[in-house]
């Protein structure tokens, strides 16, 4: 046991003596958190809007105002003609145009259903879809208001309207940060332990110290535990750091149990540390280890549902994601964070994640020999 203590002490001495390592472990994750939380967002805000108003009435101005009331749309200006709006759109100055025909106000007052036209820049399909949704929501509400007003005035409404009451569960405001931050925690718990384990071992191989360790009576499991335990400790410290920042400064809600979170993380860390050890047994230099780790990471992240929804993938790829341990952990962590799910709902995933962890770590340990060549 004492040997393991000396191994761990050595690892931490090395980590804390290297300013690059400190930056890599404690600054980079926070930068990542800030960048990813704010850039990878499915919220659509500040859409540029151009209005062509042929009606120039109280109602048409009212509609324009409704659009600019929220921070979702930003009025860039009134255009004289559809052609002018088209030019604005080509120049990337407006993403959506609202065309209000002449007679809009008059038709509304008569209880008729005047038509409005909305033109959306479809280059970015996602944004266009969301923008259209917002616009429809605004206009539906407006139509309902008008209908109510007319009712009070005694004019019968044009049609009986079916009203849809929407309610989002688990993430009431559809705040994408609540969804992304658990994902960032997953990515961190993938990159850092895998890199730490693979680069740590390969660096010692390059320097010749691994060979020296292999000639000592230090047992294989002691040597590996001396690498695994520091990686686990660092991963947990990272996680606490990132979550503290996320909860305190992003207002991320953690609805589930912290203990459960720690437990699932341990299962997942077995997988990522095991991958690191496995990579180190295949590679002779830090460049090679870096390359392999990078490849594994890109595959895991792209196929893990971090920002590409697995449900949207072609069937074959979707099936392939079942081989990706990150996929399970991603679901679990989002469940714990957003839904506060307990073990009752997650035990199946725990089993799968545990299976991945033990077999990958086992494979790495079995492949690691106290011999050269």
């Amino acid at each position: 046991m004492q040997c393991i203590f000396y191994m761990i002490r050595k690892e931490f001495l090395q980590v804390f003596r290297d300013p690059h390592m400190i930056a890599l472990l404690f600054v980079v994750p926070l930068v990542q958190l800030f960048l990813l939380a704010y850039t990878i967002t499915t919220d659509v805000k500040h859409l540029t809007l151009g209005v062509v108003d042929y009606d120039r009435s109280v109602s048409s101005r009212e509609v324009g105002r409704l659009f600019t009331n929220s921070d979702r749309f930003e009025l860039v200006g009134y255009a004289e003609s559809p052609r002018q709006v088209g030019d604005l759109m080509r120049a990337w100055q407006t993403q959506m145009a609202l065309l209000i025909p002449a007679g809009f106000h008059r038709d509304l007052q008569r209880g008729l259903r005047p038509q409005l036209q909305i033109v959306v820049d479809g280059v970015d399909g996602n944004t266009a879809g969301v923008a259209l949704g917002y616009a429809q929501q605004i206009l539906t509400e407006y139509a309902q208001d008008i209908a109510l007003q007319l009712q009070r005035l005694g004019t019968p409404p044009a049609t009986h309207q079916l009203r849809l009451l929407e309610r989002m569960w688990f993430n009431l405001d559809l705040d994408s940060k609540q969804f992304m931050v658990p994902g960032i925690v997953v990515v961190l718990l993938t990159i850092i332990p895998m890199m730490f384990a693979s680069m740590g071992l390969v660096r010692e191989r390059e320097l010749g110290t691994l060979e020296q360790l292999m000639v000592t009576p230090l047992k294989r499991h002691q040597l590996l535990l001396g690498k695994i335990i520091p990686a686990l400790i660092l991963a947990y410290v990272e996680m606490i750091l990132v979550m503290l920042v996320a909860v305190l400064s992003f207002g991320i809600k953690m609805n589930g149990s912290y203990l459960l979170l720690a437990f699932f993380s341990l299962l997942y860390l077995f997988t990522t540390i095991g991958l690191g050890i496995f990579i180190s047994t295949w590679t002779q230099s830090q460049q090679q280890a870096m390359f392999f780790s990078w490849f594994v990471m890109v595959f895991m992240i792209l196929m893990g549902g971090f920002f590409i929804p697995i449900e949207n993938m072609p069937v074959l790829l979707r099936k392939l994601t079942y081989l990706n341990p990150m996929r399970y952990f991603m679901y679990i962590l989002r469940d714990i964070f957003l839904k506060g799910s307990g073990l009752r709902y997650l035990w199946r995933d725990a089993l799968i994640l545990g299976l991945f962890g033990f077999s990958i770590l086992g494979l790495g340990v079995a492949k690691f020999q106290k011999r050269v060549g």
Partner: protein
Amino acid sequence: MNSPNLAVWTRELTRRFGPFTAVDRVNLAVKKGEIFGFLGPNGAGKTTLIRMLCGLLLPSEGEARVNGLDVYRQSEAIKQQIGYMSQRFSLYEDLTVEENIEFYGGIYGLSREKITAKRETLLQQLDLQRYRRLLTRNLPLGFKQRLALGCAMLHEPPILFLDEPTSGVDPRARRSFWEYIQELARQGKTVFVTTHFMDEAEYCNRVAIMNLGRVIALDSPLKLKESYRKSTMQGVFVEILHRTTPDLFASQEDRS
């Protein structure tokens, strides 16, 4: 033949890497307390041989025993009996002198008190007290070499394997290093050392000259010089290589 008085014993020891035979049917019997030198050009198979004896590499064929322990089945027990120092002086350059000693002491399973005691003796012995808090990377090479040897001997092994321990070290440091090796041999340690400095061969009790994976001469330096009628080991070495690989020298002469 396989008496317990032998520190190292091999019979027809062979190691192949694919079609290439790095060590070819080597037979050795190194007595306890002997300084046994291994000479040979680069690629002769010296490092491969040492690695097999240290349990770092499995032999392809043949037998080998270190302090009576079998390299196939008892490689972990052998590691308790040997100190190993590679040509790279495998210290942690980002740890201080003290931290390196403490680390290796801990790895060898010494108690905390023993580590402290050993650390102080070693620092004094190596004249490293003023450097104790210096990062090893900033240590002069000669000191690095002695520290690496000191760390490899913290568990007081009876047998030392030194793989080109003097490469890159200046002549004065080499001389004092060899004086220290002789002192260790007087204390009863067996020293198994490879080198390509011929003058260093003079310090050895016996010398094996290796080329292309085979041992081609084995005797004391004095007897080797007599039988090849040369005044220096350098002369003996060149003569032997000339006889075993004439092509090598022919091509070199052409070039020069």
